[in-house]
């Protein structure tokens, strides 16, 4: 049997696994279907001369220990921490809210609202940090049965994980825009509105993997997400991993319930003693192995996984930075949440439930060139606006819904940043259907499975098991965001797969 490890997918998790295994002396081959590495953390010139991040690009949750262990800085990673975490621009008669990593600075800004929120903010951040710190160990290893008991005797943590986010925030704050900003940080990974139970969980997840003592900062790699995946690829390559692009895996070779390698679309067979798949559980088992080789009960479980939490990204090349009302330049470096009120998000989720586009899409905007100007040619700026809570199966199909969505997003943007439409020189729009067809993200979800409590912790697959039962194929490990702990640029699922494989 071959000692080789075949890794399906050259996204950040696949590359983390490859680099760790190669450093441990294993023979590794990474098979990436696209012409470039990075998967949902890639940077591409979808607008000529502009380096556009297509998916995840915030490294705030990326494990710092991996940066050291894989010597990513030596391999070219340069981190830039944004001065601001998040902001909600002013709209109507409500002022702008800016969340800084330093609680005091945020509180100073909130004082302008003349409410109790300024005083509440530092206490809120401290409490959030305490809950997040209690959760963090559970995210860095598979959740055990004993953790269930531990969680049940930590009632405040359990409560934060299971209650509606809007309600939790309402216990602290009066300013609706502030609540909207926090909902905007938490909810992109779900199809849930902030009034739904369990929406505290994604905020805790975000904070637990972010910074320990403060609100998770926004951290970007110089050169875009490719700055991270490029360093990971360099680290893996330096240790001897073979990284193949344009290698479309057609199926995982399974013989008597044991994986023995993969077969590419062009017919090439690659023998391997172990296979790590960073594709979604559905793509891994249903597409690459096939339902006939699996037990019907397991197939039904796979089919029941929800891939909701669907987004579209609009990249705009502007001839100047847009002017969001009430936001000074440093505030433009963080995430800009374009929702006035948690209900804006709730109503978008309402529409998506019935397969409709939201009347007024809420968006998360970023201005990568505010931190890293060379991402666009001189005299140009990039605005990335991501609409969340979209239906994957949209009424009438994306061919007609796409242009309609573009129009609604631009109308909304103009409301938030008057004059922005006049500054647009070029644009590109990536729709949910594109994420599935181009990046094999089942259902267009960027997190390989909705980040809701019913698909998290004990209920999310781990590298070798799913809810306590071993995966049905020997020699196959899961290493993508569909695994515990979940989505975002964390590197954890890839690391867990590598560690689990090395332990045997």
């Amino acid at each position, binding site marked *: 049997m071959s000692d080789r490890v075949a890794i399906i997918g050259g996204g950040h998790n696949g590359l983390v696994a490859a680099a760790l295994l190669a450093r441990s002396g294993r023979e590794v081959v990474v098979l990436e279907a696209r012409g470039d590495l990075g998967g949902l953390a890639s940077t591409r010139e979808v607008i000529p001369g502009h380096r556009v991040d297509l998916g995840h690009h915030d490294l705030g949750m990326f494990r710092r220990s991996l940066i050291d262990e894989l010597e990513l800085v030596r391999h070219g990673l340069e981190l830039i921490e944004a001065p601001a975490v998040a902001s909600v621009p002013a709209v109507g008669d409500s002022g702008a809210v800016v969340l800084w990593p330093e609680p005091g600075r945020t509180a100073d800004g909130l004082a302008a609202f003349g409410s109790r929120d300024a005083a509440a903010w530092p206490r809120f951040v401290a409490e959030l940090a305490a809950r997040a710190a209690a959760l963090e160990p559970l995210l860095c290893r598979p959740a055990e049965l004993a*953790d269930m008991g531990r969680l*049940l005797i930590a009632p405040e943590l359990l409560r934060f994980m299971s209650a509606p986010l809007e309600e939790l925030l309402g216990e602290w704050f009066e300013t609706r825009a502030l609540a909207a900003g926090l909902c905007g940080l938490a909810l992109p990974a779900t199809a849930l509105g902030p009034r739904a139970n369990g929406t505290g969980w994604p905020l805790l997840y975000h904070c637990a993997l972010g910074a320990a003592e403060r609100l998770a900062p926004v951290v970007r790699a110089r050169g875009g997400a490719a700055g991270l995946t490029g360093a990971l690829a360099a680290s893996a390559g330096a240790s001897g991993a073979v990284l193949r692009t344009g290698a479309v895996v057609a199926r995982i070779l399974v013989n008597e319930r044991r994986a023995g390698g993969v077969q590419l679309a062009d017919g090439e067979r690659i023998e391997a003693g172990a296979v790590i798949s960073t594709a979604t559980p559905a793509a891994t088992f249903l597409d690459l192995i096939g339902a006939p080789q699996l037990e019907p009960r397991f197939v039904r*479980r796979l089919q029941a996984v929800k891939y909701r939490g669907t987004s579209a990204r609009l990249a705009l090349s502007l001839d100047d930075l847009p002017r969001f009302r009430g936001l000074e330049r440093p505030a433009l470096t963080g995430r800009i949440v374009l929702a006035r009120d948690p209900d804006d998000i709730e109503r978008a989720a309402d529409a998506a*439930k019935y397969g409709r586009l939201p009347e007024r899409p809420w968006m998360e905007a970023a201005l990568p060139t505010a931190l890293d100007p060379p991402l666009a040619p001189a005299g140009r700026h990039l605005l990335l606006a991501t609409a969340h809570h979209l239906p994957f199966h949209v009424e009438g199909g994306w061919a007609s819904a796409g242009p309609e969505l573009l129009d609604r997003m631009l109308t909304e943007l103009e409301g938030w940043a008057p004059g922005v439409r006049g500054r647009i020189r070029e644009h590109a729009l990536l729709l949910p259907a594109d994420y599935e067809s181009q990046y094999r993200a089942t259902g267009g979800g960027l997190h390989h499975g909705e980040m809701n*409590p019913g698909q998290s912790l004990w209920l999310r697959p781990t590298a070798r098991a799913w809810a306590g039962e071993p995966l049905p194929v020997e020699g196959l490990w899961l290493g993508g965001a569909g695994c515990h702990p979940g989505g975002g640029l964390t590197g954890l699922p890839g690391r867990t797969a590598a560690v689990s494989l090395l332990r045997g």
Partner: protein
Amino acid sequence: MTEGVTEAAGTPGGAPERRGGHFDAIVVGAGHNGLVSAAYLARAGLDVVVLERAPVIGGATLSEEAFPGFRYSVFSYLVSLLRPEVIHELDLVKHGLFLVPTASTLNPLPNGDCLFRESDPWRTYHHIARHSRRDAEALSEYKLEMRRMGHLMFKLQRAAPDELAAAVAGHVDENPGQISSELSAEVADISRYFLDLPKQRRRSFLQMLTMSSADFLDQWFECDALKAALSSSSIIGSFLSPRTPGSAYVLLHHYMGEVDGVYREWGFQKGGTGGVAAAIASAARGYGAEIRTDCPVARVLARGGRARGVALANGDELTADVVVSSAAPQVSLGRLLDADDVPGGAGKGLRDRVARWQSAGCAGKVNLALDGLPRFECMPEPGPHLAGGITIAPSLDYVERAFDDAKYGGFSERPFIDMIIPSVLDPDMAPPGKCVLSCFVQYAPYELAGTTWDEQRDAFGDAVVRTLAEYAPGIEDQVLHRQVLAPPDIESIAGISGGNIFHGELRLSQLFLLRPDPAAAAFRTPLPGYYLCGSSTQFGGGISGGPGRLAALRILDDLLRRGAEAR
């Protein structure tokens, strides 16, 4: 509207009332849980008094003749969760408990078709197979799984949540394969049961605590109408939709019932649900408990770090070794309890936490007196289907839209309706040839945005009749009288804060140690001698009597221990 005659009413016969005085135990509230607690305490030989704010007993289990000749079960309308041990131990059948089973559930669909589920599984199979053969086959396996899950919840219900969680946490950590010997035999037994569960069942259990019922049912069924029909149990009494995470738990909660040993059967109390409270009251009195109505309690008295009795609204004071409240947390741990009386300065934290308790009601009740039986388009002729439950929930989207209306402070324009026709089950409920239709309606938020229930009550009633007419054409002309009750009415008449039928949303953030508060999760409150026994305690909600019984057992246990220590 509430001045109807009620059989459930009744200040005690027997011993004349004492003004003031001393008792072994005072129970606040004569709803079914308060009465069950009182009965168990009295049965153990304690001198017990129950103090009820309203002129009648029963709380939410109230029946009345609101229209000449027609009797309504005003709020609660079906009984299934009533614990068999309560029925047997208190001998409630002897005291007048008489449950008529409802044998079927009819879900009319907009196309004139329907889903019909009967207690005979074979007939149900054929009804469902018309819509989906796969689902018809899955249904029996699903019921079995739900029954197992319900059984697990029963088991868990008996242990104090903190001890149980500690047992599960400690199991793997310190004593692999062993249960700590310090735990009570019962907790040890239950945690062993939980740890020995097949992994698949533990997974289902976790899913039930966290998932939406739509996602949960998706794992079993393909037919939308069936999923909608089954999801009804997941939203009853809860401000949730089938697609809201957490609704799967409410579904499970409704799978814990039985009538006469028939699992998952629902029964109608002959004469109206008030008869259930009357039976429990009769049992309690039989054991010597005294029940006083029109007797609102103002606050719990404490001295030396212990509860010593209660002060009544009229200024009288009653002393007791033990005080038990069946009221919702806002009352029990809020209005009745002076934060300064709680030892160790824990009172303020408790009060702040109680303020976040979610118990705004979301359901209304529309009771209709009809000129004759309704004619449902799908089954127009009279038949056994009229003796069962009838639910308007034709699709998941339908229920979801009803919820969306209410989320922003309106009542559902086209509501979810769960109804029974009590006069078919018990002809004494209406004059011959006429009938009463008891409609439980969602969603009706406690607070309406920009208007009030006094302005909207009629419009809400109209929406219900209009919706019914879509499935039973002509029903609008049959209505002789209607009684429309919104959550604020449930609050003022039944005395439940917010009008939430479960005394607080049944969701993971308000279960286990969080029901109703980490400091009061196992019926004890932080004030020694003061206990809770209502629906807002351990796994409470519904006419189960479980909390009342478990609280009484906890109190008796504590009294025994105190007695032993004193010796």
